[in-house]
């Protein structure tokens, strides 16, 4: 057991110890363990379903998500006495079909989650791998950058930056991508430190491999498991932050059917029609739950020694 580390980057390492390095294993054993993990299976099924719905949105959505019909405003969903089958989940304040908006909203959340993680993952991994591999001064400087980033209040800086670039889908993705790399850096740093000490890295160095080659073909493939786990958890983080930004009016702009925006637009009607915020909130919870279950499950099956 290591001593409980101090705060800053070391504390983050400590808190994230469960999201750690995995040893490479055979594919079939991994698959068997994955199918035996109920959380991973449940999360995986939910996630695949949501992705399928998002991809097939034009086929599933019964109406145009942007089509307004002021004569049919705030129709309640089907389980309500006044509901009707034409609008299964009812309509919003402008008479737009709620089910159609919900289905197209899945695209926005998944798009933001994926692209944000691609940007932040690239930045964070580059920082973490360099800090972990080179150590010494490089590590000191990069760790300092990470510590500084951790000191910035994320929601506030994201809001202010989103306002600067003007709230838009692209703006939100860039802002979140440039902000959410801290966990990638922390995890890949400690994972790289462990790999860099192994004999095969020493062997690669001894036979004269270039640093770039060692980083790309020895270090990166061996921290991939840890990287995928962080990527899933950060994807959930990005989706939640987008929803919060859009809820505060500085994220994705109307008339796009972002779930956070749907909750924000429904807020003034929630006292008499609670389902206006309940439905997108439930969708958000399902998506984040699915991603988190997959992330936690992947951590358990790729690195069972680190499960909690």
């Amino acid at each position, binding site marked *: 057991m290591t001593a409980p580390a101090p705060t800053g980057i070391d504390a983050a390492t400590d808190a994230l110890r469960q999201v750690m390095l995995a040893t490479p294993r055979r594919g079939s054993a991994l698959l068997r363990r994955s199918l035996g993990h109920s959380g991973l299976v449940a999360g995986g099924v939910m996630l695949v379903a949501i992705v399928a719905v998002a991809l097939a949105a034009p086929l599933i959505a019964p109406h145009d998500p942007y089509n307004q019909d002021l004569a049919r405003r705030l129709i309640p969903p089907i389980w309500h006495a006044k509901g009707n089958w034409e609008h299964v989940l009812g309509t919003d304040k402008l008479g737009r079909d709620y089910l159609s908006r919900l289905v197209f909203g899945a695209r926005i959340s998944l798009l933001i989650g994926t692209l944000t993680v691609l940007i932040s993952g690239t930045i964070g991994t580059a920082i973490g791998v360099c800090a972990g591999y080179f150590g010494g001064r490089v590590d000191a400087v990069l760790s300092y950058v990470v510590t500084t980033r951790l000191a910035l209040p994320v929601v506030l800086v994201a809001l202010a930056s989103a306002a600067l670039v003007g709230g838009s889908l692209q703006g939100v993705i860039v802002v979140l991508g440039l902000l959410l790399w801290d966990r990638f850096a922390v995890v890949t740093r400690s994972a790289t430190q462990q790999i860099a000490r192994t004999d095969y890295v020493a062997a690669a160095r001894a036979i004269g491999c270039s640093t770039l080659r060692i980083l790309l073909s020895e270090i990166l493939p061996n921290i991939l498991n840890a990287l995928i786990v962080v990527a899933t958890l950060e994807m959930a983080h990005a989706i939640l932050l987008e929803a919060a930004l859009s809820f505060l009016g500085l994220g994705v702009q109307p008339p796009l059917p972002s779930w956070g925006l749907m909750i924000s637009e429904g807020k003034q009607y929630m006292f008499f029609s609670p389902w206006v915020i309940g439905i997108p909130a439930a969708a*958000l919870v399902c998506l984040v739950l699915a991603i988190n279950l997959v992330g936690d499950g992947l951590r358990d099956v790729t690195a069972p020694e680190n499960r909690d």
Partner: protein
Amino acid sequence: MLSFTSQRLVVALSVALTVSIVAFLLLHLSGDLATAIAGPEATAAQVAEVRHQFGLDRPMTLQYLDWLWRALHFDFGNSFYYRDSVTSLVAARLPVTLTLGAISLALSLVIAVPLGALAAVYSGTIVDRLALGFCVLGQAVPAFCLGLGLIIVFAVQLRWLPVSGNASWKNYVLPSIALGWYAVPAVMRLSRNGMLEVLSSDYIRTARAKGLRPSVVIVKHALRNAIIPVVALAAVQFGFMLGGSIVIEAVFNMQGLGYLAWEAIARNDFPVVQAVVLILAVIYVALTFLADVANAFLDPRIRLI
């Protein structure tokens, strides 16, 4: 201990300084300040006049040093919108956010630490599984959704508590639950893991072997050691809560620092935004520094790092 503390202090101060540069740049990236101060109807000559008057025609470094010097004396300039000093605006709102953060932190610790300890003591049983399930589910519910749900149930339908505002203690109940919720999974996992590690140690076996009651072993011997890492996490979480309270304050219309910042961002009132970013970051840096020192004091092994 002294060298450890001074070393941490140097890092904390330099991080605070770097953050101040980021906050300063935030204001200057927001557009031409002279135009913003002079207002939309100003002529080019008036804008030039303002630029000179406010010293905006000086080199950037000089402007930064001047701003930093004033900020160190708690002078953050004037709000573009309120035509009032940023310091007095912040001073009026900060207590609301600090109160909200403190109650939320206390609430989350009171729920998460016993729950984590319980999960560790009954590790592998249904209690453990329920606690972990609660964690996973808790992480998936966004704080603002929980806040809105609490309003619908407890304020609108049951009418037990007020919907919004910050007039009395009753206004703090629902926002504290929504904000405290956010920290519960992390604290619970850490106290559970700490407890699991401690419970398998030799001194616990000794305590059990000499016939102490299980409750004494668990509370007096195990828990006290298991929660040392929670101290550091609690400080960090308090910092996150102060930053994250912006969403909760918006949901509950609480006139705190976050609400002030939210309004200021929407109005392009960047001196206010800049001050709030700097203040929250400095509080966070101070908290992590104190947590480091407290941790080193509680656990002497850390001082050797």
